[in-house]
């Protein structure tokens, strides 16, 4: 095949979603963020909401999410994204409003904002990337770091006597009256990616139908700070993260 034949439209088998722009991503090779960004972009476009989406990015690795997905973005202070989203959705009820947060942002410094936004039943979706570590600041212990897991601030492994226990935010969220849909997904293979996309679509739709707040946790990897190859990180996640953070829907009131 010639190059011209290869790029002919009828031979197109796969393409980057339209809302994902050409800015080179700063994420490490093997990181789950890129996959989730792609899914979010696809779902927004498929729902026809590209002109009606207001997204909130966190502080952490996804701080620059606004550079990659072509919707309107607000960049929040660390942990405060759900507070921003609450106000935005109340002021613009017909907009698709979601936050995109990591474990440090959502489950540590922003626990109060997260729980209260969810409990108020704000018609928003919170996308929660849980890779059990602080990525942007260089691999420190997160609220979701597993027991025994080594990070630069628990170099001898997370010890509950010293550091307390990992926090299961989705389990907490599922108990709140205000949440409509709480699910835990992953994106390490094709099957899981397709499931995660369905979950995102469902959450976004519920939020637009005014059914309450939605939390989509994505159990993810951080191969760089886990000090593993991407492939090994995926495997380690399946063997260690998933047993503690089991996948599937925790609540679906929709």
């Amino acid at each position, binding site marked *: 095949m010639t190059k011209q034949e290869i790029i002919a439209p009828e031979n197109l088998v796969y393409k980057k979603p339209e809302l994902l722009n050409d800015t080179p991503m700063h994420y490490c090779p093997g990181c789950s963020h890129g996959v989730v960004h792609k899914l979010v972009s696809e779902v927004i476009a498929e729902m026809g909401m590209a002109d009606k989406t207001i997204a*909130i990015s966190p502080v952490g690795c996804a701080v620059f999410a606004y550079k990659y997905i072509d919707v309107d973005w607000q960049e*929040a202070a660390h942990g*405060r994204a759900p507070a*921003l989203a609450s106000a935005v959705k109340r*002021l613009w009820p017909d907009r698709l409003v979601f936050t995109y947060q990591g474990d440090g942002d959502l489950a540590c410094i922003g626990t109060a904002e997260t729980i*209260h936004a969810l409990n108020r039943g704000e018609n928003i979706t919170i996308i929660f990337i849980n890779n059990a570590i602080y990525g942007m600041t260089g691999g420190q212990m997160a609220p979701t770091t597993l027991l025994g897991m080594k990070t630069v601030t628990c170099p001898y492994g997370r010890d509950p006597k010293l550091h307390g226990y990992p926090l299961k935010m989705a389990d907490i969220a599922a108990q709140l009256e205000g949440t409509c849909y709480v699910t835990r997904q992953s994106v390490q293979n094709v099957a899981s990616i397709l499931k995660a996309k369905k979950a995102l679509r469902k959450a976004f739709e519920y939020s637009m139908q005014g059914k309450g707040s939605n939390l989509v946790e994505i159990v993810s990897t951080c191969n760089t700070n886990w000090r593993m190859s991407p492939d090994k990180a995926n495997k380690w996640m399946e063997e260690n993260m998933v047993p503690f953070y089991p996948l599937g829907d925790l609540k679906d009131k929709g």
Partner: protein
Amino acid sequence: MADKEVTLMKGNEAIAHAAIRCGCDGYFGYPITPQSEVLETLAAEKPWETTGMVVLQAESEVASINMVYGGAATGKRVMTSSSSPGISLMQEGISYMAGAELPALIVNVSRGGPGLGTIQPSQADYFQTVKGGGHGDYRLITLAPASVQEMADFVDLAFELAFKYRNPAMILSDGAIGQMMEKVVLPPFKPRRTEEQIAKECPWATTGRIGMRKPNIITSLELRSEEMEQNNLRIQAKYRECEKNEVRYEDYMTADAEYLIVAFGSAARIAKKVIAIAREQGIKVGLLRPITLWPFPSKRIAELGKQVKGILSLEINAGQMVEDIRLAVECNVPVKWYGRLGGIIPEPEEVVEEIKKMTR
């Protein structure tokens, strides 16, 4: 309530009624004495059923100010109110809003500190407000009302200034102005802006990509130092413009004054009584009342500094604004401070004694 009707209400209530009337889109707040009547009045008035204004009791002042950030980033007229300890919690959000160049109104009905302090009135948040309580090089447009009427009038003015300069604005009041009742004529009703008006007036706002325009991004983050310096310079240029255009003050009996009191807010009210008593005793005292604390009326104070024999900075704090007065007059005239602390408001007679000391 009909337009132009004279009514009696607390300063805090006036803030709430004025907000509803001036097309405010959203209020986000958390209870704290002595300003809780703002949220209580809004909750009782149910503006969401009339003007469509959103009213939300947040889980904390931290959440309140970040809700304001979110709302302001969409071009809406949004506000919060609190009192000193709550305003301290909001400093992060205020700095972010200044950095992201977002217009919003924050009302501080201040009380005595430091710490949990007292619920009684105080002006001890002057430094925090005008010197930048949060991190980074920024300024807060600050209006200091001295009456319930001004509490009502400054809501719209603060929004206008905030949007003109794309910067947060603060109404710095205190427990006395917030809690006292006076006659007030509420501002006339002004409709909330439509989606189209917001899109036109705030082309930067994150409203969703109306008409699939290029995405708007609201952020205070810029990791490239050269770019960040440019951002800072742009913000500073805006502040210089604001200093040029927006200084507001009240001259009171300064024409023949030999002594000058500089006081803002409730202290300025006390000062007027002091002036009446002092003038009965033959001491010609006048008042310069800064209405904008930032930008500060330095030029007018410098002019008056050449006319008078002494200046007394009357503040309900340990002497904060006095530093700005001294800078303004460049040591050309003696500048003294008098004030009370801990929630005690200076009484007129004790201030008259201070004036007398200056004349000796």
